[in-house]
């Protein structure tokens, strides 16, 4: 299919796969170097992993609601002799694997991998990524990661998975005697982590190169959609933070396999073994780990912020309120993100003076976040609000991000963090940010860009139902966690109720679990909608949302090489409801400047505004 062929559009709708080129099925759909296929592959994989991670979470929730009861389905198989009750170490394994899967196999790849891949070339007007083969490899490195995580979990039959929490603090993760899952499974887990890291790294190099070098003519940096800014900043974050985690991972592997002593101090007697001979420092791991993993929180958030900005502007038919402050605040979040990792360690016994500096820098990171929230509200302000699924998910994103951001204030302030550290308060906080914000953003983005991916729209009714159930289930599950945290309910407790001061919280946990089940079932609607819409969804043209971005000027789905007409960019991506034209309320980035002469006054205002928006 020739890139410039005007007839490409006709073929673009079909998935015939036997077009003009002799690309076999495998090269086209499996080991494809086409960024769109890779993006969709990432999306499918991450949605699958989302179900896996969610199932693990339900296991956790079940134990908290009905401790030591027969676990449905799994329990009777795995723990038949014990009456189907999960064992405490299995609980810690569930906790660990839930977090690992959700963070490393769902949220990071769904944003950077799925949407980054699919959107970056389309939005900057490139025909593919800068390094298509590298791009393909970045997807296929996910599978070893999934394989190793799976191996870690199923090694020796479900009961010796890593049980150190996703943070894998040594000594627990360094000595095989220390915990049931600290044997070989922990090494597999670290291998999986390394593969995820390699995959991310390949992606991030590719994204940076593509964004810097392959923009369409006229696409200046400040004409880039915020999605691209989000992806760009994320890529930079990953490129700088990931090596530290990878190094730390190798150090831990070396510690475990080769007997280095980076993290284990001497004289520890674990599980009746001989005293350790180390000389290492457990806090070293925490520093290295959080040096990556705190920026990783923004890796898990910034692209979603960008995508929500794009979707929001298109839905309310309004330019983004304060485009440049949005960009600067994203950059500020990323910059500050590198110097706040210590707030995870306020109670760890590091130098108290560090606690103070980290407190101030952490507080300051709330500032750009606040600016972003205000700007989103400003974007809606005066806009035309029509609640379709995309809009609902975007508003939910903002709303949940406010909750998650504000509850972070308690964590940022050291004295209150002394109390809240490692309680459910923090669980509530990061689920609001990562699930509430990021995943609602992703759900919106799936609905929004689905037509571009497959040429059909997703079902609205099912989308709304999914949103409603997810939103109710989500808040029902995670909002009470704030209360649990205030009540001093610690994380990762298999049976908190043996502590009398938590006994009375069991009914609340039951309520939360029922909400979680509701939320889990709601995701089946998403999956069903995703699959069935591929066959039954309403067929749409190039620009179903009447949006401005470059991707909407390509066919739906775009053929190989993306654009049938090489795009030339004349303006920023948010010129909705522009007074320059009358017949429609959007002005695409590729549209030639309107020929109709405009009144002088209007021209001034719009050019001023445009100047502010476009630099």
């Amino acid at each position: 299919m020739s890139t410039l062929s005007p007839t490409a559009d006709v073929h673009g709708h079909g998935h015939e796969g036997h077009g003009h080129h002799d690309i076999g099925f495998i090269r086209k759909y499996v080991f494809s170097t086409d960024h769109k296929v890779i993006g969709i592959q990432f999306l499918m994989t991450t949605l699958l992993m989302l179900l896996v991670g969610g199932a693990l979470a339900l296991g956790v929730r079940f134990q908290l609601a009905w401790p030591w009861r027969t676990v449905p389905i799994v329990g009777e198989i795995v723990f038949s002799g014990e009456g189907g009750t999960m064992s405490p170490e299995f609980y810690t394994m569930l906790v660990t694997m839930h977090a690992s899967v959700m963070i490393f196999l769902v949220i990071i790849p769904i944003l950077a991998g799925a949407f980054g891949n699919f959107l970056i070339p389309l939005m900057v007007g490139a025909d593919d990524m800068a390094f298509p083969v590298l791009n393909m490899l970045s997807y296929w490195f996910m599978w070893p990661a999934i394989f190793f995580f799976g191996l870690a979990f199923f090694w020796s039959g479900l009961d010796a998975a890593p049980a150190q929490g996703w943070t894998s603090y040594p000594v627990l993760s360094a000595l095989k005697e220390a915990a049931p899952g600290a044997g070989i499974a922990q090494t597999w887990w670290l291998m999986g982590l390394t593969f995820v890291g390699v995959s991310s790294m390949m992606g991030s190099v590719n994204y940076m190169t593509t964004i810097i070098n392959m923009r369409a003519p006229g696409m200046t940096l400040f004409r880039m959609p915020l999605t691209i800014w989000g992806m760009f900043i994320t890529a930079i974050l990953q490129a700088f933070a990931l090596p530290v985690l990878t190094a730390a991972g190798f150090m831990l592997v070396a510690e475990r396999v080769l007997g280095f002593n980076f993290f284990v101090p001497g004289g520890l007697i674990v599980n009746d073994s001989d005293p350790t001979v180390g000389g290492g420092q457990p806090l070293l791991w925490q520093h290295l780990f959080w040096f990556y993993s705190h920026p990783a929180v923004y890796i898990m958030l910034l692209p979603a912020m960008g995508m929500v900005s794009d979707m929001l502007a298109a839905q309310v038919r309004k330019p983004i309120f304060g485009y440049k402050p949005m960009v600067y605040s994203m950059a500020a979040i990323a910059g500050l993100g590198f110097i706040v990792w210590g707030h995870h360690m306020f109670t760890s016994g590091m130098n108290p003076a560090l606690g103070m500096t980290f407190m101030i820098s952490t507080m300051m990171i709330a500032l750009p976040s606040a600016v972003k929230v205000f700007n989103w509200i400003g974007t809606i302000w005066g806009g035309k609000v029509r609640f379709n699924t995309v809009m609902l998910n975007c508003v939910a994103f903002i709303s949940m991000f406010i909750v998650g951001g504000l509850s972070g204030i308690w964590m940022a302030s050291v004295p209150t963090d002394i109390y809240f550290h490692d309680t459910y308060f923090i669980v509530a906080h990061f689920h609001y940010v990562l699930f509430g914000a990021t995943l609602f953003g992703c759900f919106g983005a799936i609905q929004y860009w689905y037509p571009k991916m497959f040429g059909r729209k997703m079902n609205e009714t099912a989308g709304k139902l999914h949103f409603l159930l997810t939103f109710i289930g989500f808040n029902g599950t995670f909002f009470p966690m704030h209360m649990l945290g205030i009540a001093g309910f610690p994380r990762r407790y298999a049976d908190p109720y043996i502590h009398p001061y938590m006994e009375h919280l069991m009914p609340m946990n039951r309520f939360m679990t029922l909400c979680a089940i509701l939320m889990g079932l709601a995701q089946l609607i998403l999956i069903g909608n995703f699959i069935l819409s591929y066959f039954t969804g309403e067929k749409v043209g190039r620009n179903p949302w009447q949006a401005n971005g470059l991707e909407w000027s390509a066919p739906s789905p775009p053929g190989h090489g993306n654009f049938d007409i090489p795009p030339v960019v004349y303006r920023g991506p948010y010129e909705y409801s522009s007074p320059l034209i009358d017949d429609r309320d959007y002005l695409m980035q590729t549209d030639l400047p309107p020929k109709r002469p405009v009144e002088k006054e209007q021209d001034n205002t719009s050019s001023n505004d445009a100047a502010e928006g476009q630099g």
Partner: protein
Amino acid sequence: MTRFTFAVLLPGIALIAMGCDLNKVDPGGGISSDSVVTIRNGSSAATPAGGDGGGGGTAVAAASGAPGKLIGTIKFAGTPPVLPPKATKGNAKDPAVCAKDADIPDESLLVGANGGLRHVFIYLDKAPGEGTAELPPAGEFDQKACIFTSHSFLAIAEVEFGVKNSDAVAHNVHTFPALGAVQNFGMEPNSSTTMSFNKAEKAPMQIKCDIHPWMEAWALVLEHPYMAATDENGNFELPELPGGTYNVRIWHERGAKNGQLERAKVTINGETRLDREFPAGDFKL
């Protein structure tokens, strides 16, 4: 909603309702499931079978026959394997005492010149109902040159016997009974004491010294004296028994089936012989 959808939805809901009793939010099972307590009435669950008597291990009712001794020879068929000594001369722990003059042999399979197997236990599970022989005088259990003597020891339950340590080093006597109480006490150099076993056993028990790991003996504890251990030529002799048919166990520590080489049914009619030859396959080697 289409009629079709409705048609599918309804059975779906019905299925949920069937599968999951929503009224019962609290799932059962697991450790918090209910338990009830019942009281045991009567002392056994055994269901009496038709036949009575003649059961395993019991003395078979005496039909006829004159009283007599049970004598015989137990042999190892074929060429016995050569077992290395447990400790060679001069190389044992506490060399001043242990294996000072000779190797410490592995006594777990001692075959005499004629194939006679030593340290085989021959015993009746149950005493015959009448005419019990007198209890033999209690033996003495010695520890000499870091070897337990005798390697096959016979004892009557609750009858005290002497234990001696003839060595200049400390030993301990650690018993491994299946039914009775474990004993594990130290014997200081050149000392003696007494001990007894509190319960009769079904089979010989191991006795070990934890200080000298090669030291090992086997003791058979019964309530009656109808037991014997073979000598170096494999010969044994049981005390006189009333005439009748008995179940006789032949047991050796290396017997492949829990040590039991055979459970022989023997009819005593005057002095009766019980000769057996066991192939290597009957032993754990």
